[in-house]
């Protein structure tokens, strides 16, 4: 049973993302947004990825789904915060209904609007099980992790599960200096992405 209490385990967000950086290499496109669009490029920069900033909140999953439908032989990873997902919970149904199986959604759950300074989301005090929501929406594989060691041990296996997949990672707030990192210029990213997808 997953622990969603206020004292439930949570992992450092950089360490949580570093696991994915190591696993999602060749054959993957990674779409980040909000806080993760600032953290991921500090860890890794590849032409097939898209760090969606400025974004429309709730837009990362639909954009990643569009990429996945357009490129069915490519694995697409969408990294979203819980605040962004709450803006567009219906997108989970859109993903499942689309028939796309090559999309993996990672929800970084810290119960905060982090990039605006750490205000609480509407889910504060509510034990929202995003993995269960995704499963109910029709995702083929879902998982919850709060312990870094378990995530490091099981992430590769989870990424091999049938899609669409959603994993909720309970994470600690990001270091402030990382949230001030700049996202690579959009025009440069878009050109790199389109060139990588044509290759």
């Amino acid at each position, binding site marked *: 049973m997953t622990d969603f209490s206020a004292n439930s385990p949570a992992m450092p967000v950089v360490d949580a993302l570093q696991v994915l950086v190591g696993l999602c290499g060749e054959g993957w496109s990674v779409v980040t947004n909000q806080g993760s669009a600032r953290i991921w490029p500090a860890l890794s920069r590849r032409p097939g990825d898209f760090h969606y900033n400025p974004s*429309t909140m*709730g*837009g990362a999953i*639909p954009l990643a789904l569009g990429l996945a*439908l*357009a490129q069915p032989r490519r694995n697409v990873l969408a990294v979203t915060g819980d605040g962004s997902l709450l803006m567009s919970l219906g*997108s989970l149904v859109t993903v499942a209904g689309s028939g796309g199986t090559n999309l993996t959604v990672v929800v970084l759950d810290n119960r905060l609007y982090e990039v605006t300074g750490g205000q609480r989301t509407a889910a504060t005090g509510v034990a929202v099980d995003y993995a269960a929501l995704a499963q109910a929406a029709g995702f083929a594989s879902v998982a919850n992790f709060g312990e870094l060691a378990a995530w490091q041990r099981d992430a590769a296996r989870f990424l091999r599960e049938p899609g669409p997949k959603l994993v909720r990672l309970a994470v600690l707030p990001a270091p402030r200096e990382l949230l001030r990192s700049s996202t690579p210029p959009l025009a440069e990213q*878009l050109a790199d992405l389109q060139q990588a997808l044509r290759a």
Partner: protein
Amino acid sequence: MFTGPEIASTLIELGITHVVWIPDTTLGPWETALDSTPGLCLVRVCREGEAWPLAAGLHLGGKAPLVVMQTTGLFESGDALRNVLYDLKLPIYSLIGVRNGLVAGSRDTAKTFAEPILAAWGLDWVRIDSPADKPKLAEHVRRCRAEGKAGVALMAEGAP
């Protein structure tokens, strides 16, 4: 205005690969044709704000999407549209049904706000108000494509 088979064949002729939509009572009857025409893929979203970034992903992935919704959905999805068309600068084309557009004298704000909002957003649009205007859709899509910019076809609808 357009029948389902008419719109499907027009879209195929234009090279459209995906229709990302939320239907209304006028657009809804196109569903069978859009869903069954080889070469066209119909993508159903839950909220209009999803349609723009989803179309953006399709475009970035090398496909040619068309966004289809009613004016009410256009209004609802304003920030998503702004982000995709202006921040990302992607030339996504959309076909928007104008609720009550065919009802003379209608003061439905879903009709009267449509063009002022498109003007405020700096978008290029064409009006399809009668069957004689139907060729304007393909002409406008081709012109926007040649100029590498987004465009909108406002298609007048009857009362819901």
